């Protein structure tokens, strides 16, 4: 007996709107379908109307969790277009923030995984400890979420000795915490029982469906842009690419925890070897006509920006591809033959950032308050009409 259940666009397991339509047989998922487009803001079109500086903040707002990753990816590209090189100190600070952001994103994900598995204590503890890194980021950049650290040609804020000391202390605390939780989290039988063997994605499938980030690495694919396409500081910093071979949600958890530990190492390296000097180079207002592909390893996987300039102070085209969109085909594959109970876990395991993945369409009149009201009343009218027309049906079937 098959029936369809809609997961989303509004569902407690999804913090952002996306529609997953599951065909289930009892508790087992037979097929899954995906519908995007509930969260489109038209960033790519909008970027063509903004100058290079304004676009930093626009790209930063593509995502709330990995805000630094998109703006870094964009700024890397623009720097290449303008043929400037950020000073060493600026680059170090920029990628220090990147790594701290990865720490906060992975801690957030661990908490979310705990919550999706119904393990709220784990959720509360990881998020409590995440506050440490959030406070560090707020101290460095002046804000908790949108750091606004990037400028074309470097970063906007410098670090002083006191701040460096505070970050090192914070990283130390975080490392202890992460190791402790990793140790006990990996031993809690109910938690491990929920994660192990769930959402299987074989290595071949991960490769052919172009999975990225921890999703791919948990299937044994050693793909990491930081190593594959070394840019800026990453050819100087020693770090390992973390992989797992269990191909399930447990593997993805392990990969993320290992990456946390790697990120602490990178942060410490960057801080200990922070060179003196300027933090930003002077950037011109305009860029020569050219095109550039910029890649960056965000916490969720590879970010890729394609930027084309036309000699003015605005980009001709800015194409953004966020890691979540790349992981959707793999998600569909993972969901098949899983249990309903595992939907949130499997879906959360790619660390979906729906507003990252969706940004292209300009929603008609979403900015105008009045239109929204009109739309709402229209919606109500429509709903009322539909409700009146439809005969009362009890088309339910015994699901067992």
């Amino acid at each position, binding site marked *: 007996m098959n029936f369809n259940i809609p997961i989303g666009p509004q569902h407690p397991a999804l913090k952002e709107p996306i529609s997953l339509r599951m065909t289930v047989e009892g508790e087992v998922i037979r097929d899954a379908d995906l519908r995007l487009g509930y969260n489109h803001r038209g960033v790519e079109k909008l970027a063509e109307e903004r100058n290079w500086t304004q676009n930093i903040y626009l790209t930063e707002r593509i995502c709330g969790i990995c805000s630094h990753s998109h703006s870094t990816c964009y700024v890397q590209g623009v720097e290449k277009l303008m043929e400037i090189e950020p000073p060493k100190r600026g680059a170090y600070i920029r990628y220090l923030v990147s790594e701290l952001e990865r720490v906060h994103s992975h801690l957030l994900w661990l908490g979310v995984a705990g919550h999706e598995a119904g393990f709220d204590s784990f959720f509360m503890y990881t998020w*409590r400890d995440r506050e440490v890194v959030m406070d560090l980021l707020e101290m460095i950049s002046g804000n908790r979420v949108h750091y606004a650290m990037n400028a074309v040609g470097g970063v906007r804020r410098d670090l002083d000795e006191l701040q460096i000391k505070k970050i090192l202390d914070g990283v130390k605390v975080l490392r202890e915490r992460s190791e402790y939780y990793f140790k006990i989290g990996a031993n809690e039988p109910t938690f491990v029982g929920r994660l192990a063997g769930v959402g299987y994605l074989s290595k071949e499938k991960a490769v052919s469906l172009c999975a990225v980030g921890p999703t791919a690495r948990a299937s044994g694919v050693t793909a990491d842009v930081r190593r594959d396409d070394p840019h800026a500081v990453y050819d100087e910093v020693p770090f390992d690419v973390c992989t797992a071979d269990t191909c399930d949600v447990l593997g993805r958890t392990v990969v993320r925890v290992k990456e946390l530990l790697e990120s602490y190492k990178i942060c410490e390296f960057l801080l200990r070897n922070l060179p003196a000097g300027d933090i930003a180079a002077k950037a011109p207002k305009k860029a020569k006509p050219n095109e550039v592909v910029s890649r960056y390893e965000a916490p969720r996987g590879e970010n890729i920006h394609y930027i084309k300039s036309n000699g003015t102070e605005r980009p001709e085209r800015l194409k953004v591809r966020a890691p979540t969109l790349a992981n959707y085909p793999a998600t569909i594959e993972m969901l098949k033959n899983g249990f309903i109970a595992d939907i949130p876990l499997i879906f959360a395991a790619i660390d979906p950032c729906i507003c990252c993945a969706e940004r292209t369409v300009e929603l008609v009149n979403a900015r105008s308050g009045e239109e929204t009201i009109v739309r709402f009343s229209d919606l109500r009218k429509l709903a009322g009409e539909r409700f009146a027309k439809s005969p009362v049906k009890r088309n339910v079937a015994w*699901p067992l």
Partner: protein
Amino acid sequence: MAALKTILYLVVYPGLLFLFVYSTFCEWFDRKVYARLQNRMGPTHTGRWGILQPVADFFKLMAKEDVVPDAADKTLFTLLPIFGLAIVATAGLLMPLWSPSPSGASLISFPGDIIVLLYLLSLPTLIFFLAGWSSTNFFSMIGGTRVLTMLFGYEVPLFMAVLSPAILANSWQIAEIGAFYRAKPLLLLPNIIGFVVALIAVQAKLERTPFDIPHAETEIVGGTFTEYSGKKLAFFRLMTDIELVVSSGLVAAVFLGGFGGTLVVRLVEFVVKTLIVIFLLSLIRALTSRIRVDQVVSFAWKVMAPLAVLQLLIVILIKGMLK
């Protein structure tokens, strides 16, 4: 006059009013302990230490709009919360709290009342299933089937676990079991396995983590209660709270030596012992992650049921030795 008195018992103590006050207090206690275990604050602002928060929640829900789905079976949909509340409140009367007569310890007390109590505690599960089913919502229906699937898991271990102290006490009356263990408190020790099994089974019956599968919000939204709102939801929530009190009262009565003495002592003992049980339940809730419904059933039959049988064996052996 006697009728008036009975009505007073039913409505005030140990009936509805007492159950309402005490169950909201227990919910507050549970929430507060759960929050403190997670290093949070928990309810803080309504009343002293937020103690009135569950009451405030209840009245707020009562004032909310009540939506009945068009496709739902309206009579059943409306009656179920009332039935559910009535059932658990009746079960509450069986608690050995109040004795108009010197012999029995509860308002209604008769040989075999423990069976009736267990039966009354099974009914809410059926109510939840019907509630989910009559909502005609996919999430509710999945929740409803999960409720029933789980029932097959935990019900038998719970019955067997509660059976063993009764066998040892040689009585089917809650008050008598309590009195037996009050006389011989050392005999409580052999029942420790049964106590653990009963705690876990009660946790499952109350649908709390790790057994909150029927209304796992990240999977199936509100589960059985997805379509419920307003007064009906308030009734269901109150029903869950009273069920928590009654179940923990049952566990306390048979495994922690019951309640005895004068009215006040009896009440104090009841409060202390149920709060201990609720604390343990909260601890379990904070300790574990939700498991899947197939894992529940296999856990119940592979671990809990054998343990309960083991407990029965121990009790029978001890009984033989005592004779």
